[in-house]
């Protein structure tokens, strides 16, 4: 195993780690940092469950090498609940009944959060396109789209 030292920020906290050069960011987040809200649904960038924000952009962390995260600012679902309060996006998902089993939810929330932070306006069609890289088997996407619309309002 070839290891490399990286340092990055995860949910606002500085982290220094020694990582296997073959490891994905997903592996490191789950296994080393115990951020198990980052879900592993396929490991090959198909389902979107492992989406995290890297410098504000949504990425499938399963196909992003951990070594590439050196110097980056990473946000996971664990960082969204602050001071006893859900984020606006999280609250919209709760209010609209957009969560069933919850496995795909962190990924959807992170992508929607990136959209919210962009400050741009999105039509319903654009929201659908932005979220099309996430798979959900429970909800038929209806309430997820509604929740995203609600979170991106005003």
């Amino acid at each position, binding site marked *: 195993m070839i290891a490399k030292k990286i340092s990055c920020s995860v949910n606002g906290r500085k982290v220094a780690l020694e990582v296997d050069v073959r490891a994905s960011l997903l592996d490191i987040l789950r296994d080393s940092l115990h951020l198990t809200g980052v*879900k592993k*649904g396929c*490991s090959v960038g*198909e*389902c979107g469950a492992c989406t995290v924000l890297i410098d504000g952009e949504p990425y499938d962390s399963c196909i992003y090498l951990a070594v590439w995260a050196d110097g980056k600012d990473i946000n996971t679902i664990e960082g969204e609940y602050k001071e006893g309060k859900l984020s606006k996006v999280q609250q919209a998902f709760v209010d609209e*009944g957009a969560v069933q089993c919850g496995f795909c939810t962190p990924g959807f929330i992170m992508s929607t959060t990136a959209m919210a932070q962009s400050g741009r306006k999105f039509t319903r069609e654009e929201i659908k396109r932005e979220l099309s890289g996430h798979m959900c088997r*429970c909800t038929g996407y209806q309430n997820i789209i509604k929740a995203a619309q609600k979170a991106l309002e005003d």
Partner: protein
Amino acid sequence: LTAVKALRLIEVEYEQYEPILTAEAALREGAIEIHEGTKNIIAQSEYHLGDLHEALAQADEIFEDEFSTSTVQPCALENHSAYAYMDGSGRIVVCTSTQIPHICRRVVGQALGIPWGRVRVIKPFVGGGFGSKQDVVVEPLVAFLTTVVGGRPVKLAFTREETFVASRVRHAIYFKFKTGVKKDGAIVASALKAVSVNGGYASHGHAIVDNSGEKFRHLYDQQAIKFEATTVYTNMPSAGAMRGYGIPQVMFALDCHMEDIARALQMDPLLFRLKNLNKEGYTDTLLGIVAHTNGLPECIARGRQLIRWDEKKAVRRRQTGSKRRGLGMACFCYTAGTYPLNLEIAGARIVMNQDGSVQLQVGAVEMGQGSDTVFSQMAAETIGIPVDMVHLISEQDTEITPFDTGAYASRQTYISGMAVKKAAAEIKDKVLRHCRVMTDIPPQDLDIVDAWIVYQHNGARIMPLAEVALDGYYNLAHAAPFTADVTNSAGTNALSYGCTFTEVEVDLATGKVEVLEIYNVHDSGKIINPQLAEGQVHGGVSMGLGYALYEQMIFDPGTGKPLNNNFLDYKLITTMDTPEIGVGFVETDEPTAPYGNKSMGEPPVMSPAPAIRNAILDATGIKFNELPMNPHRLFERFKAEGLI
């Protein structure tokens, strides 16, 4: 080194067998037996209701048709995974993503040949199941392996590719219908033959096709029925439970067949169905299931209105362009649980805390469908407290939670719900009896409303529930905390109904089907939680659309290797493929249910595929009797029929 040398000297000759991937191949004369002595047949069954020949002799016309469905995978977003370790006393602890923790415990005990009490199964949050986790797949192996490594933890987590081929899939079933009908459109009898394709191991085996044979007879009135079914072993992945348990398959065959008969008789397909539906009061003579309620005629009326059926039918002329629109509908019926074929028991336990809030333990399994939420609502409603005073233990632990057979057959709200209701009623009764000790007021004059003890006749508040609860713990003479531990053994079943109405646009040039509108209208009895119930319909319809239009596991016919066991090549619906899904409920009040409710979880997936097929028929005049109706299949067929 010697071993390496020896290895080089060994010559292996492989005799390559043709993979058995279809029912025909499995049943062919001289086919290789996957399990010796079985002739590749897992089981066969048949039943007769009335005299088929006599009934068919009265028919004016007889219609015969064949249908087939595809092998699909539940695709829960969380793959199958479990870990096991041994605790200090040598017991095996299995933590697993399962729908059936209590059954899992028994199967692990049986597999390892150890007393079941030495196995403890824990079910944390589950990332979806849809039936594939209503089976024991990875658990016995990790339970065994931990015993080999001195009790250290052993984990087995499937990759997505493994989940596709090594967990469970939905049985592909071939159906052959023969139905006799009177000139006026009354169905007199039908014969249904079914061949169900399983994999190399039985899993739920023949039960799925048997279930399709049972449910199809509850929908339409007939004097005689003959059902014959065979389930075969093949080299396909093992098939097991998947949302609907054989019913999406049979409803596809049945309600396409009904559509074709109505059209052949030049009858309105809606009127044809309404004429033949079993009515309220229908009693199934084989199982004794009674339809105390049947809201299907109203569901059809609502669907017709939502999609503006009559209006659209009236203006639709002969279409000639490349894009053609059509309307379609289909019905289904379903049960709640498996009684009387199987025992249906469910446990619930309630302990009232000193502050009047309660701890609720159920053996039923939350896996995203919202059962924990509705059980909390039920306990709150029956006791008379706000729902935030109910603390439910969501994690299943066979060490702690009461026995329940689990999440399947859309049974929990109906069967486990009754256990919760009985336990909550017992708690309320104990509270009011204790009030008598404190106030001398007879229990029958009291009630609990919003966590207050009140007079029943005028609702006037007497004292907070918390005061009674606390006294129940500390009364010097009569301390007896309020607890209940109930098992409900259901001796009933209830039929739920519903229908799908849809409008599609078929592009003849590409074979692509766009779903313009789709509505599912359900009679699931009283709706306990409208938002969650709608969510179930959305998800079920979405799965049904995938079943209709896209999903199919494909195998190399030469080698049997899976060709699309991943999310890139197996077409799962995304946000881009999803039309708006309209939902309607016709609420009946089921007398055998705890709160008037009937089954809700599986039903939404049952009627979208035949409704889409009937809409494509309406648009193009072409009958597609095979699933899925993907562009490839449509395009080839349109070419063959000279439409393009």
